[in-house]
């Protein structure tokens, strides 16, 4: 069983303790512990269960590569699943629970899956659940959902209480990894004057070197690291960041870094995570290497760990993963673990070395201490159900005949090391197979390239395959020099020199023992998180899977939260062997960002709560809010839908607002309407091209309604144009059209008609615009006092004037979207609120009633006015809407004219706009279809029209609608059936609603109300 040693632990502070809970049990650790080291110190060998077989799982590694120690972290609104215990800093009050077990961690009913391993072979899901079809939904899926999944999803009723943020940085060089290679590279680049950001994903500088007994420039690695960091901190051009992982490298030197700012201090003012969005000319990935497991039967049992992780726990945290640890290896590096354990006074019963001979200096050192070294041997079985009690040894070359049982409670395994090439590969860097080390390393001839076609990512040190510390710094020096050269920089300062014990070559061992039979192969785990064994990959190969990408998806090897950091090379080596191919020919799966999972909160950044999206506010927004507006989102604007009074329904409020407007006085905040100035000698010509009707003959002081089409002929916007002077037009667009139409104008002016003398400016927000509407509209404005003559003679319908109203600087437009006498008054936005308040005050005696967008919609529908987005949907042309009167016959051209002459556009069978009146006075459902006889080829009911707008009209006391109907205008008075969403009664037909085709102008067709 694992335990805390009496002494040691270079990263922990033994003078203080912190307490935490695991599955409700109160445990203690020290500041500096990871959750994993604290759990091991507390003797917690089993920390979770595997995905498929629910096998007990223990801590296997000491860093980001660990596949097993995933926990639910935090409680309540801070609960987060799948958090890696090996990278979680311990803090006081930490709450963790284990995952994927039922009913308990120590006894799990799903473990039965493992007792019947034939139950879930590779490709099980694909093979089993295809037939019979209904079984999937009703039988298999519920069972799988019950047992599958790793962590527990957060409760959707909880909102994350923490905050997050982004941070943009620009630099010359990003260095990923604060081990000795990264530190040395940063020192050189810093001396050369480059701007450097150096990120280390853990809380400590130095990487493995201090644990592995490396000496640098005559100093123990730990001391050299401290000196290096001290020097770097003094360099103004170098920025150091701990707890900050480079998550991904993208085109154009875009680098994402994930900084865990306050994971270990929840509830403070700091953002929990910060996402760095960096532009860097060059990236050095000094990301080190990951140790590989060995594939021997029972290698997944809790207590079997990576050899380097075992010495990490001993040296860094003063934690012994076991009292008696067997080492199993194919290389010299694992002997460091034996020596570290021996140094700590822990028993190493034997070192099982698969190589026929082992005589390197580290091996000699182990032998010199009297440690038993068994060469040419392997492990053929691990005994113990929920931990290790013994291993059985065999000859590596045979099929696994037991030659000896060794009592032990932990196994430290090492199958060699793989460089972390992820950042090299994210943006397309290619790899080459290194025969000597049996790993993929970056191919220097095929780097990821930048916008100039030059490489912009380099791997340095172990990440470049220079695993042995002596070579690591030499390699990092060479790589850094090349990177500096790309900037035209250099430094004369020599690179530090590292000294470490020499290592004899490793021996690739992909199966242990080499000739293991099927039963043993079914117990050799490749992917510990997803339960993929040697036998599964071999089965996939037998079933015809040749591509490593397909095999990944078929067997699930390398999937989920660890993305095969431990299983990748071992898996593809087994696949290559099964296919009788070379490993490099089989290749690896694709490395994609992020390197390890990053939080959704970090990706969202600050965009949540009140600043989730920009909310656009008119100058009168606060008044609306204070007066109980029910909001409608219109783009990013919020517009009042209606202003319900206490206890009033929205529908009643809308009806009241319409009645008041038609009877006396309504007031609308129309500030969101787009307002674009178009000016220049060619402005008239330009406006004539934008609109379907003739605008250039508009006189100053006058307004005209117009339609704007795309070059494909489809109606895209409408609005009123006012001519300000000979050279200048003011174009009103729809609320949603303001930015889009301005961009459309600039597109044509800049790309097509660049020689036309026209300037545009979007002044939408310069003006607050208030529609004063109703029979008393003139009276209220006159009462306010105006130097503008507002009489019908001086300012007739579709005229505009400028002056002062109630002391405000104003433009008054006599335009009406309601059919009432209407003045749209524009005042500078800064005066908008004051003007609005004044209108309410002075209008009180006329019953001034603010109205919202729904009343606006109903009133325009009563008048048969179209609405962009209701009557149009991108497939509708003005001719469909009976707007032929607004299409100039005189003009040679306008945008959309040619398109509108195409056969499909002039087809008389195009559905055309009509009014619709239900026979029973009810309101037609939105989007309802007019039914036609028969069914189409798909057995669907034929249709002959559809509803585009439908409302209850309080003015008429009945439902009114507009719709597009086949030959509609020629069929006045005909009655059509419209479908509903109501279900058909048993044995009967689905209910329909009958409506009569009428004119779309329901109210005041002569326009007597607006022309007064």
């Amino acid at each position, binding site marked *: 069983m694992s335990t805390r040693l009496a002494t040691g632990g270079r990263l922990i502070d033994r003078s203080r303790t912190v307490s935490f809970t695991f599955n409700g049990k109160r445990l203690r650790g020290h500041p500096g512990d990871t959750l994993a080291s604290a759990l091991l110190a507390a003797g917690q060998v089993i920390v979770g269960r595997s995905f498929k077989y629910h096998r007990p799982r223990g801590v296997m590694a000491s860093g980001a590569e660990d596949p097993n120690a995933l926990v639910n972290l935090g409680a309540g609104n801070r609960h987060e699943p799948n958090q890696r215990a090996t990278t979680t800093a311990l803090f006081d009050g930490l709450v963790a629970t284990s995952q994927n077990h039922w009913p308990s961690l120590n006894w799990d009913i799903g473990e039965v899956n493992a007792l019947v391993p034939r139950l879930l072979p590779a490709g099980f899901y694909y093979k089993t659940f295809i037939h019979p079809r209904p079984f999937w939904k009703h039988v298999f899926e519920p069972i799988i959902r019950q047992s599958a999944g790793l962590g527990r999803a957060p409760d959707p009723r909880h909102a994350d209480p923490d905050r997050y943020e982004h*941070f943009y940085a620009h630099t010359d060089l990003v260095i990923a990894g604060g081990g000795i290679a990264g530190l040395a590279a940063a020192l050189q680049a810093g001396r050369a004057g480059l701007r450097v950001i150096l990120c280390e994903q853990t809380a400590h500088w130095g990487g493995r070197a201090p644990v592995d007994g490396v000496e640098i420039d005559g100093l123990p690695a730990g001391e050299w690291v401290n000196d290096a960091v001290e020097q770097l901190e003094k360099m103004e051009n170098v920025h150091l960041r701990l707890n900050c992982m480079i998550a991904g490298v993208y085109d154009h030197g875009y680098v994402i870094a994930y900084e865990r700012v306050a994971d270990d201090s929840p509830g403070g003012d700091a953002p929990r995570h910060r996402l760095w969005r960096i532009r860097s000319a060059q990236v050095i990935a000094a990301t080190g290497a990951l140790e590989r497991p060995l594939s021997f039967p029972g290698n997944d049992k809790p207590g079997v760990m990576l050899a380097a992780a075992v010495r990490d726990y001993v040296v860094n945290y003063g934690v012994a993963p076991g009292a008696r640890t067997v080492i199993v290896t194919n290389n010299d590096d694992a002997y460091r673990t034996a020596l570290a354990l021996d140094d700590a006074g822990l028993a190493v019963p034997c070192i099982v070395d698969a190589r026929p001979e082992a005589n390197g200096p580290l091996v000699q050192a182990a032998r010199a201490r009297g440690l038993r070294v068994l060469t040419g041997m392997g492990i053929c079985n691990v005994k113990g159900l929920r931990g290790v009690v013994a291993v059985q040894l065999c000859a590596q070359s045979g099929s696994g005949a037991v030659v000896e049982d060794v009592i032990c409670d932990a196994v430290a395994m090492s199958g060699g090391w793989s460089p972390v090439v992820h950042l090299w590969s994210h943006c397309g860097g290619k790899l080459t197979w290194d025969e000597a080390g049996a790993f993929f390393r970056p191919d220097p001839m095929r780097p990821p390239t930048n916008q100039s076609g030059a490489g912009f990512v380099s791997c340095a040190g172990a990440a470049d395959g220079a695993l042995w510390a002596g070579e690591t710094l030499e390699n990092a020096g060479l790589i850094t020099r090349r990177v500096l050269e790309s900037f035209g920089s250099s430094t004369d300062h020599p690179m530090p020199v590292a000294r470490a014990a020499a290592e004899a070559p490793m021996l690739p061992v992909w199966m242990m023992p080499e000739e293991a039979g099927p039963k043993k192969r079914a117990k050799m785990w490749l992917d510990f998180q997803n339960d993929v064994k040697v036998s599964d990959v071999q089965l996939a190969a037998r079933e015809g899977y040749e591509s490593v990408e397909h095999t990944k998806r078929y067997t699930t090897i390398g999937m989920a939260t660890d993305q095969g950091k431990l299983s990748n090379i071992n898996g593809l080596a087994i696949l290559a062997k099964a296919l009788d191919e070379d490993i490099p020919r089989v290749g690896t799966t694709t490395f994609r960002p992020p390197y390890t999972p990053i939080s959704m909160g970090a990706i969202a950044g*600050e965009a949540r709560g009140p600043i989730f999206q*920009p909310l656009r506010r008119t100058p009168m927004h606060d008044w609306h809010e204070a007066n109980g507006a029910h909001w409608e989102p219109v783009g990013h604007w919020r517009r009042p839908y209606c202003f319900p009074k206490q206890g009033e329904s929205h529908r009643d409020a809308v009806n009241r607002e319409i009645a008041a407007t038609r009877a006396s006085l309504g007031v609308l905040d129309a500030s969101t309407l787009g307002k674009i*100035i178009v000016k220049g000698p060619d402005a008239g010509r330009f406006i004539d091209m934008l609109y379907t009707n003739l605008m250039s003959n508009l006189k100053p002081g006058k307004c005209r309604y117009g339609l704007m089409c795309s070059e494909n002929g489809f109606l895209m916007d409408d609005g009123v144009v006012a001519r300000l002077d000979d050279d200048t037009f003011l174009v009103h667009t729809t609320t949603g059209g303001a930015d889009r139409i301005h961009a459309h104008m600039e597109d044509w002016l800049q790309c097509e008609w660049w020689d036309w003398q026209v300037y545009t400016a979007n002044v939408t927000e310069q003006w607050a615009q208030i529609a004063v509407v109703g029979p008393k509209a003139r009276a209220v404005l006159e009462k306010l006092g105006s130097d503008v003559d507002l009489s019908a003679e001086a300012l007739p319908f579709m005229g505009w004037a400028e002056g002062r109203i109630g002391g405000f600087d104003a433009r008054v437009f006599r335009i009406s979207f309601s059919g009432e006498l209407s003045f749209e008054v524009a005042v500078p936005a800064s*005066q908008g*609120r004051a003007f609005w308040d004044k209108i309410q005050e002075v209008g009180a005696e006329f019953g001034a009633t603010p109205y919202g967008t729904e009343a606006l919609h109903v009133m325009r529908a009563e008048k048969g006015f179209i609405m962009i987005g209701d009557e149009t949907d991108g497939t509708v042309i003005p001719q469909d809407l009976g707007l032929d009167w607004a299409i100039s016959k005189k003009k040679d051209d306008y945008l959309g004219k040619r398109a509108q002459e195409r056969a499909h556009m002039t087809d008389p069978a195009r559905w055309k706009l009509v009014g619709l009146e239900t026979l029973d006075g009810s309101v037609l459902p939105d989007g309802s279809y007019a039914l036609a006889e028969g069914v189409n080829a798909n057995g669907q009911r034929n249709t002959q029209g559809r509803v585009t707008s439908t409302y209850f009209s309080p003015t008429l006391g009945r439902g009114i609608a507009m719709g597009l109907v086949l030959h509609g205008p020629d069929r006045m008075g005909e009655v059509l059936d419209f479908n509903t969403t109501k279900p058909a009664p048993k044995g009967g037909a689905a209910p329909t609603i009958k409506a009569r085709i009428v004119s779309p102008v329901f109210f005041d067709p002569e326009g007597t109300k607006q022309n007064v």
Partner: protein
Amino acid sequence: MSELALSALAGAKATGLVTIEDMGLCGMVTLRADLAASAGAVEQVTGAAMPGPRAMTTGQGVQVAWMSPDELLILCDHAGADAMVAALSQALAGQHHLAVNVSDARAVLRVTGGAGALRDTLAKITPADLAALPVQEMRRTRLQQVAGAIWFVTDTEARVICFRSVARYVFDLLAMSARDGGAVGYH
């Protein structure tokens, strides 16, 4: 009725790593014209020389900022913006141009603090390279989800301009970014 005129943020202020304040009503005029041909007229009206790309020049109580190859933003007294439009139009009579008062279409914020904290705070909302932005250079950019512009008045004081309707959003963004717990120490 300009005595009743209100800026979008009505004097809002927030303090943290830096201080963010509403500048109140500021005069702004957009001029679109052939800049080479209008240098004389601009200098005559504003007293400021024609700025080069992204630069700002200063006249009598007026600043002129280069916004694009055919657009300037002239910063002046709020009450004087209409007169500025009229003066420009007069000086540019006969030359194709568009001068328009956009004072109320925008909001202006003042952000003050230590040189590093100031840039760190802004770097949370704009992808612009703030270390490379000299004092008195206009940088049109993105403020997270909206368009905006930034310039440094001095090393320790910045201006942020955005559209009026999103003034609250930009203010809230800055206030959140300036919270004391979020110090970065990068710049």
